[in-house]
């Protein structure tokens, strides 16, 4: 257990640098671009699956967690979530595709799900 906060902290610490590095890392995205140009392996299926399914879960949990922290009534929290969740989902889509590798997208979304889930457990208790 004590490893988790440390891992999380170092993750946060590295996130910005990682993000910049990811954007600067031309090799992989260049490769995909080139293979797309050649018509070889066109569709980015791995990212698509991550964005659609994990992105959906992460968007739902993250929006729920975020709004559950606000000091407003539960009904209002829900409505606010409904308003924002589509935007969050689309933003995660863009994020997954902006990163250079799909494995990082997978990792980041998993962490987002875990953190949001944790927040929800803290704010809502175990609902199920």
């Amino acid at each position, binding site marked *: 257990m004590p490893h988790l906060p440390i891992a999380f902290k170092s993750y946060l610490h590295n996130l910005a640098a990682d993000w910049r590095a990811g954007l600067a890392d031309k090799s992989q995205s260049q490769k995909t671009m080139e293979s797309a140009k050649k018509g070889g392996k066109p569709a980015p299926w791995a990212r698509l699956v991550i964005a659609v399914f994990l992105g959906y879960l992460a968007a739902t949990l993250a929006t729920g967690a975020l709004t559950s922290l606000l000091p407003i009534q539960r009904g209002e929290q829900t409505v606010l979530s409904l308003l924002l969740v589509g935007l969050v989902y689309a933003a995660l889509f863009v994020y997954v595709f902006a990163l250079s590798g799909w494995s990082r997208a997978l990792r980041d979304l998993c962490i987002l799900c875990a953190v949001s889930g944790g927040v929800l457990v803290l704010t*809502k208790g175990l609902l199920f």
Partner: protein
Amino acid sequence: MQTLRQSMSWMHTWTGLLFGWVLYFMFLTGTAGYYDAEMDRWMRPEHPAPVEVTDPAAFVSMGLDHAAAAAPDATEYRVFLPIARTTTPFVRVFTTSQSEDGEIVRGRYELLADGSPLPAARDTGGGQTLYRMHWTFHYIPAVIGEFIAGLAAVFMLAAIISGIITHKKIFSDFFTLRLAKGQRSWLDSHNVVSVMTLPYQIMITFSGILLVMTTFFLPIFIVHYGYNENTQNTVLEEVFGITDPVERTGENVALIDIAPLIARYEELLPDERVYIVTITNPGDSTSTVQLSGTIADGVLREPASVKFDGVTGEVLTVSRRKITNTMGVINLLEGLHEGLFAGPVLRIGFVISGLMGGGMIATGLVLWTKKRRQKLRGDDKAERNLIIIERLNVGVIAGLPIAIAALFYANRLVPVGIEGRAEWEVNVMFLTWLALIVHGLARKPQSAWLEQLSAAAAVFAFIPMLNALTTDKHLGSTLPLPGRPGDPDLAVIDLWFLVIGAGFAYVATIAARKSGKINKKGGAIEGAASEPAPAE
């Protein structure tokens, strides 16, 4: 930022391509939906002239009398006055009652101004079917349809974001449209239609997600409320303000006179008209009367309403059309999406924006094939895939408008009285589309484009003629002229068919000119980047 732009361009391409055809369908049928009420009337030519509400109170009591006669021990009466374009233009009466074994029985009646029932029209889904397709997709369960629509909208939103990032010079190329320059022209047209209508596209996509949110983002409710047998009721109460109906006491009370309540309503909400009258537990001591305005009287998709005690006439609640909470923001966006508030001119603006949305997707899809074609050199498998997509594009893009026209042909030509007639109208539409997709696959794309675009021009231009041949509600009688009011709501549909026909004729001419040129050159690829600009 080079790489971000590259990855965004890559994402834009793939998200757009994956849902492009679905979104194209949603855009076209959804745009038609801006005239759903008018199309409803066009497709039911047997119906008499619309009812004009002169005295709301008289119309309401007429509707309530009808309801009381039809379902004496109902738990709810609802009367809709034909004041807004959201309705059929007749008085509508709904009753809800409970049968002895606890089943809910609903009644639905449409009345003319004198209280007589509306004569039956041909069995048709009307404009509503065409409009509802853009998120239910007709043949599949509505829930699955809403999921597909929601996912398509999220893809679209992501494609908009990535498209903006990809577009290098959104401001300095704002006015740039280079015609007759092959692939360059396709890119320019795609950029121009997208950037011009960008506010509309963002609005329509985001609000589209909101309109299916309760299905598509159902887990949000579970996140906030958990999952047990009470979840649904708690959500309905806390989020949507819907509570269980109050039990009858069984104490019989005469129904209150509606006229003074309407006067009170107009006093409390001077800007609102009475549209819906809802009476719960009529004739009981727990009875309430709710008068609501129409959502078509303003941008918010939430009517104003006043709730009265059904016995004493005391005002219980008043809700005005104001944005007071987050739901208000959602209602605003949903109201913008549906455009019910739009007057005749703004409605045309909505349709043009919607059509440009369709054009945005169509140009994007074609642009993809052009780019792809340039990059392909000697990869047989990829080329085969590309050819299939190129050919499918024809049938999907040019074929869908023809299929929509086929729906209107079917409405006039499918014999009245056959079983499942309404369903057959839609079947005709989709069979036509299927046939055109097959046609597009079978022909060389260039000939297929020319043939289908010309066919589209012809079929749309002919609909008003067909209308004149089969009914007496054609442009000859519906067009408002000096000295006669005509019927503008019906005329506008026929006029749109003519305009769309002319539009396709223009596009077909361009396609014809282009294919003529290419033949002279001797079989170069369509859209080769070497065509000279027209003499200016």
